[in-house]
């Protein structure tokens, strides 16, 4: 019970203090939103929307999680308030779960901003929402864990930002969003297969457009492996770097 109170309050504090603060709402939500509108204006008719939607959802998740988590944790560590969490009688895993959950929820919420607007233009009734939601959750989880990994490695807030961009932008271009993976230059293709986002986007593509590289079960499986691997790496580094 005590752990649940602590867990819930850490989560709530992050949501109130970071995720719902105006600059972050604009970065996390207005940004994907304006991107959506821009694409809608650019593409003639409504035919392009279902092709664009998976990409927009993935971008929204990525922008809502990775750097948010990396930056807020680095910020708290720098300002020493993170010590307060390490001093609390809750396990590091509980703490990490609470921190990640905030980013995951925010990422999921962001993913559905473009969907909400697209619904005004196209018919989304044929979509398998349960698989779509699973894909979004897994994308959010892996992106958040990546953010945590960055947070564990960065000392300064600007470092966290740089690292985030370092991962996030290549990921955008290599995950098959704008250029399908099979059209990428052969040297880049292996890299794209090492990115969790590639598999999340593949599921979303298959849901909205029917085009895919791998079957959904395989994609989900790979993303789970990524999540487990990233979690393990974070945990190992946290013990080494947070408690000096």
């Amino acid at each position, binding site marked *: 019970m005590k752990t649940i109170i602590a867990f*819930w309050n850490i989560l709530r504090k992050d949501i109130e*203090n970071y995720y719902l603060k105006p600059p972050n709402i604009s970065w996390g939500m207005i940004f994907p939103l304006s991107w959506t509108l821009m694409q809608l204006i650019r593409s003639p008719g409504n035919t392009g929307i279902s092709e664009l939607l998976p990409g927009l959802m993935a971008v929204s998740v990525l922008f809502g999680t990775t750097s948010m988590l990396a930056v807020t944790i680095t910020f708290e560590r720098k300002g020493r308030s993170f010590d*307060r969490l390490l001093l609390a009688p809750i396990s590091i895993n509980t703490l990490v779960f609470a921190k990640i959950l905030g980013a995951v929820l925010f990422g999921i919420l962001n993913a559905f901003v473009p969907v909400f607007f697209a619904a005004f233009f196209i018919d989304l009734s044929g979509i398998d929402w349960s698989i779509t939601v699973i894909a979004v959750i897994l994308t959010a989880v892996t992106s958040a864990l990546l953010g945590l990994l960055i947070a564990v490695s960065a000392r300064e807030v600007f470092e966290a930002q740089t690292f985030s961009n370092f991962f996030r932008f290549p990921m955008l271009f290599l995950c098959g969003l704008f250029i399908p993976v099979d059209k990428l230059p052969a040297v880049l293709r292996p890299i794209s297969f090492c990115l969790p986002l590639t598999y999340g986007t593949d599921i979303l593509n298959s849901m909205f457009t029917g085009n895919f590289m791998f079957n959904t079960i395989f994609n989900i499986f790979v993303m789970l492996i990524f999540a487990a691997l990233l979690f393990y790496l974070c945990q190992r580094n946290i013990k080494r770097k947070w*408690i000096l």
Partner: protein
Amino acid sequence: MEIISVTNLIKKYGEFQAVNGINFSVEQGEVFGFLGPNGAGKTSTINMMVGLSRPSGGRIMIDGIDAIKDIKKVQRMIGVVPDENNLYYEMDGFGNLCFCASLYGMHKAEREKRAGELLEQFNLTEAGKRPFKAYSKGMKRKLTIAAGIIHNPKILFLDEPTTGIDVESARQIRELILDLKNQGKTIFITTHYIEEAERICDRIAFIVNGRIVKMGTVTELMENLEGEHKIKLRSDCSMKDMKGELENSFTDCRVEIPDDNSCLIVSKERIALSPLLQLLDSRGISVYEAKEVKPSLEDVFVKITGIEASKLKNEKGKAGK
């Protein structure tokens, strides 16, 4: 009863050994102080005891629990006020306290009640609605201390609680520490203010370069200086140039010139005044006050550690952030 016991504690940062195998224990209900200059290893030691840092060697037992293996159990009953304030700058005082209370699993009604009480006790009720970043240094420090005791811990760790803040806040904090002691709390405090240690600690350990060089009650520590006599002379004229001549003429005395118009004579023997006064008189310096100076903890510290007390004091400004 021993509530904290530390054996052979070591902390290395790479090759550098910041804490060199220290041993000490703290009795339940006492105020135990670590007194030492900047870089002595005080913060390193505290951080190992509270779970913010991993020891490179040694053993820490707190209330019968192995603090290295079972730190989360220990953290339930300790409160920590670190050297730097660690609250959330954007949140208001009340929100900060309630959040800290929630980390210990306190329910909403309970934490709001306790937060309100503490704000009142620290004269921060009005400030409780303002964000932490708008607080003065002294207010920040007081709120950080309030956050450290919000869950009513049995043992309190304070890392330089009064460094770099205004005199009045420092006084309130010292009063609070004595209050907590009267409530039966055990308090571990680090400081580089000698007078502070002398005023509030039951026992003091002098720590220098990661080693405890001396430990004991204030009275025990003072015994070290027994047999040393000190006389302070004051005059209207400058006595700066007299140091050499006085030491040459009175070979069993040590002479210090604390300021231009005074002169401190230190000796193992009782000091006879008239030869001193005659010598000074013959040089045209008339002494109008001669006073015996009782030894202070400062003298003990200087004698044992070889560190000039002024060096400790100079750090006052530097450490205040």
